[in-house]
């Protein structure tokens, strides 16, 4: 693939005080590609997508969306930060799905989907409404347009959040552990929506702890640890032939704890699990 990648991340560094969160991350994501990011807690996976979306500023390196530098512009030979309005416009070209859904609690589901279309992308309210209803149907929540977020289950809220991010026709979708805050029996409905998006050719970065899903949906898989990309490759390379000892250790931990539950998610086992959790 020689075309300009949708997203290019180049040697990005980010620290919080003394803690180095990202230690020189580079990653290209091409049109239609689905990249899943796995790794232990604190490895910087979430920080990576938050930095790409410019919710966190980066300390070094560069990021490009469709070849356009994110967050800065060059001016008389120097780089300087973009004004807020331009950064907001760049964010508006990406879609973000959060672990905690973060639906706007004071608006109906419909308004959650229409507001940015109208206020950021200048669509007419009618067009925005049409688009919103179409997307709600696509995520299986056609009847919920007038509901308030608090009236929905976690899985439904997350599906609304996905629809909200899709409403503005993003060039790339970023998922920050979209199922980590969900009850186990609600995970599948959300993964189903993401799977359908992948099949539809959406460009995506998905940070997840669902190993079976990370393998199944990915074109390419990235393993991160201590703010670095340790290994990257096809799902088969990562999961079947891990070359670094750290990835092997990580996967063996998961095969004991998690992969069993994710892959063989038969109903009785899930019930058992819920029983144990109590």
């Amino acid at each position: 693939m020689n075309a300009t990648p949708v997203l290019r991340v180049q040697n990005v560094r980010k620290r919080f005080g003394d803690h180095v969160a990202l230690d020189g991350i580079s990653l290209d994501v091409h049109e239609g590609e689905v990249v899943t990011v796995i790794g232990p807690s604190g490895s910087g996976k979430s920080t990576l997508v938050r930095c790409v979306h410019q919710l966190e500023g980066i300390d070094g390196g560069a990021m490009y969306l469709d070849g356009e530098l994110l967050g800065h512009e060059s001016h008389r030979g120097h780089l300087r930060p973009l004004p807020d309005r331009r950064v907001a416009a760049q964010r508006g070209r990406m879609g973000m799905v959060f672990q905690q859904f973060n639906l706007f609690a004071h608006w109906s589901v419909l308004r959650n989907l229409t507001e940015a279309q109208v206020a950021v992308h200048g669509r007419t309210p009618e067009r925005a409404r049409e688009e919103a209803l179409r997307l709600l149907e696509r995520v299986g929540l056609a009847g919920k347009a007038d509901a308030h977020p608090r009236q929905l289950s976690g899985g439904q809220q997350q599906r609304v959040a996905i629809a909200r991010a899709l409403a503005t026709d993003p060039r790339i979708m970023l998922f920050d552990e979209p199922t980590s805050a969900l009850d186990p029996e609600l995970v599948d409905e959300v993964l189903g929506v993401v799977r359908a998006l992948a099949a539809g050719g959406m460009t995506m970065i998905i940070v997840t702890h669902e190993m079976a899903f990370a393998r199944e949906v990915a074109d390419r898989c990235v393993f991160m640890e201590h703010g670095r990309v340790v290994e990257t490759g096809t799902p088969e390379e990562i999961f079947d032939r891990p070359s670094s000892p750290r990835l092997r250790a990580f996967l063996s931990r998961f095969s004991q704890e998690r992969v069993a539950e994710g892959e063989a998610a038969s109903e009785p086992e899930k019930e058992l699990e819920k029983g144990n959790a109590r």
Partner: protein
Amino acid sequence: MSSPAVDVADARPRVRPLRWLAGAVLLVLAAQLAWFLVTNPRFEWPVVADYLLDPNILAGLGMSLLLTVVAMALGSGLGVLLAAGRLSGFKPLAWACGVYVAVFRGIPPLVQLIFWFNLGYLLPRISLGVPFGPTFASWPTNAVISSLTAAILGLTLHEAAYMAEIVRAGLLAVDGGQRDAARAMGFTARQSFVKVVLPQAMRVIIPPTGSQFISLLKGTSLVSVIAMADLLYSVQVIYNRTYQIVPLLIVACAWYLAVVTVLSVGQRRLERHFGKGQR
């Protein structure tokens, strides 16, 4: 254990002698108070009735309400700006807003009112122009600062300091994820604030603002010291002439209580309105 069926629905209420005693005490106190109010001639109830709807007193009441509404509106607007300033990432601005709140919350409103009223002594002329440069226009301070402007200025600046703290608490109570989501949707900082953060902060801001409105209404009585014709001042003007101090103070009390009661009902309505959509 299957003898005659036990059903707690047949139980009789418990005997509670202390409640009976407390009830009796309250009854006696209420009777005593009523007796005092009715039999003490110095209340001069007919005088109260005469003055309750007196045009001068109604004008005073109108002025008190006007001052409350104007100072509250200006104070809230300024308070929102101050709160946003205090939470700004630009430190000098945050610091300046903090200093404002500390100063104007720290000086008693009565002192501020007298101070603003006497501004002419400190600053004989108020002028408009380039700082340290040419002046375009100027007015004698005593022509600009009447008792009305001094009253509005004093009450507004004081109110703004309190509102800034209330609004700031409300803004901090909004979950950080809401701000993230707003930015993620491509809203600018101002759009996020106006569309997402402030409306959700209202749930936390409204209840203390209602109390603030009520204390401001009562606080307007302070402007009587700078000869502003509010409710208390109108009452004082009359009793200074007729010496019917108690009945006229009762007229003032009755109006303050009536307005506060109406405001409390309004506050409850607002709380219900802004509480929707929240857990």
